[in-house]
């Protein structure tokens, strides 16, 4: 069976997804689940009243079945008590859609997990949990860094033209690093800004950065730098998902 051999019901939900959007308000909780392997992302917004799901909306970045399963579960969950809704399984969603291609059963059938996540977040919110400190761990040493001094690693930037058409990664060290990232976009189409933070502090530079072609990797750090003689790729640690992946780059700016 091909991975895109979908039932009519799946196609219907893909074409006309139900309950797309977001909800706002103090009584709304959000559930978010991503598939780190392929990058699918699902967000559910749940409004609970008297223990029942009064309203639910979703947004999905993913394939046809990711969109269809999200749409389907909003229909299944709406009006149910949270105890009932949390019991909805991946299989239930797939069955309601008249089945999914086997290969898609796990990867894009994330809706049940995302809904559970939203409900759990709601339950957490009900009990006054002690706020955990956003672990300010010491910056770990970057493996391989010593090997690439003057071979693709820069600690200061004097000549921007040096980065012409180079995939350049720059580590967040505040305003100045953002400024350099913005300047670099005039010299290369590929600038990646890596920050350990979940968000960047509000300010005009940050707004400019977000509107630019700079790719921002939030909650991320460089674990390792690799290459034969010069920098060729890095291993990135996604602190949120606790996942590691490789990214091909040509130069790295770590300001001192």
């Amino acid at each position, binding site marked *: 069976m091909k*991975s895109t051999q979908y039932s009519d019901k799946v196609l219907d939900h*893909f074409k006309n*997804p139900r309950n797309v959007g977001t909800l706002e308000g103090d009584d709304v909780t959000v559930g978010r689940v991503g598939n780190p392997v392929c*990058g699918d992302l699902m967000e559910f917004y749940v409004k609970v009243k008297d223990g029942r799901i009064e309203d639910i909306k979703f947004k999905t970045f993913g394939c046809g079945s990711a969109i269809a399963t999200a749409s389907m579960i909003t229909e299944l969950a709406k009006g149910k008590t949270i105890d009932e809704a949390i019991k909805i399984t991946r299989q239930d969603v797939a069955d309601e859609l008249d089945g999914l291609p086997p*290969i898609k059963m796990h990867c894009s059938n994330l809706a049940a997990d995302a809904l559970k996540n939203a409900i759990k977040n709601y339950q957490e919110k009900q009990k006054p949990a002690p706020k955990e400190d956003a672990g300010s761990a010491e910056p770990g040493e970057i493996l391989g860094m010593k090997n690439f001094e003057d071979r693709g690693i820069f600690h200061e930037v004097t000549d921007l033209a040096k980065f012409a058409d180079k995939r350049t990664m720059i580590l967040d060290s505040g305003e100045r690093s953002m400024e350099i990232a913005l300047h670099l976009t005039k010299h290369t189409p590929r600038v990646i800004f890596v920050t350990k933070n979940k968000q960047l502090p509000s300010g005009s530079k940050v707004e400019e950065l977000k509107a630019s072609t700079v790719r921002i990797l939030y909650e991320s750090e460089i674990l390792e730098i690799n290459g034969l003689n010069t920098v060729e790729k890095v291993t990135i640690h996604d602190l949120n998902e606790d996942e590691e992946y490789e990214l091909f780059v040509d130069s790295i700016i770590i300001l001192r």
Partner: protein
Amino acid sequence: MNFYLDYQSSKPVDQRVIDAMLPYQHDTFGNPSSLHAVGDDATEVLEASRGAIGAFIGAEKDEIIFTSGATESNNLALIGYSFRNRDKGNHVVIAEIEHISIHNIAKYLEKNGFVISKVPVDQFGVVKIEKLAERITDKTILVSVGYANNEIGTVQNISQIGALCREKNIAFHTDAVAAEGLLSIDTNKDNIDLMTLSSNDIYGPKGLGALYVRKGIRINPLIIGGGQERGLRSGTENIPAIAGMKKAAEIIQNEMPEETKRFQQYRDKIINEVLSKVPRCYLNGHPTKRLPNNAHFRFDGVEGESLLLSFKEKKIAVSTGSACSSKTLEPSHTLIALGLLHEEAHGSLEITLGRFNQEADVDALLAVLPEIVKRLRRLSPLYKEEV
């Protein structure tokens, strides 16, 4: 009405090719190994086909070996050459963006005692000669870099790579499947020693390919039998298909300049319109050093399989490098090699033009593309509509 814009995946056989093949299914059905007149007719077309294919790549007819397709040709080139020349060294260099068949053959070679190095590419998909040069050691016997990339359409500096290999006395193999029929190829000028060709990629029948093997280059056969193809590829020749590939090569030689000019016009129209009409959309591959029939984009916040399904609704056939549409659920290794993140590789759309496309196909695509992207972005948590 259907609109086919996925020529990279498969091409229809040209009617003129079908006409040229038909007599060899029934009237002229001989086996070239037979010594009677029926066999002689088969031998004649077999050799004429070698000649026609040789002419289109600047090779002599004795340098063409027929195979069952491009995958077999890649196997014969890499495994056949490496095993035969093991005494000279055990190191083989390929590029990160090679076709999956080359990557998997390289894995097989690794299991058999060879050492593989992979050359990274720049952000446009170009193999930099200095990156290749620094990987060459005194154990290197073979370099394999595709002529042009089948996904993103980037064309390599083949003559530069060929010259380097010649200077270092290393054999140079190129998989030319994506480039054949679209670029003029000259094995002599470019110092190519081994080259993979496919019949279908020049509108010939499926199930046939060829390997160019320069005179003096020694390889081991993979298929042993009656000693056909100078003992390098046994098995009774597929004469109807070979007659078809002959015709296909002749057509390409006559019509390529005209045809590629047309593709290029369509391609540029697509690239210009999409980039100007869709915000946060990027061209993958090289802006100029790219195949005349290839347009490859990525869209922020949109996933490729959803794109494909949406185009399918409109009866438009296109392709994607998204993980969701692949057998392994891994994103395209070519897009990752460009330095893209998984989520970026996710949002890719590949459009490849071919012989039977008309401007109406291009217009049909352009008429619906911006709206399709917009709709999927409205569903996406990764995209905030610009005000």
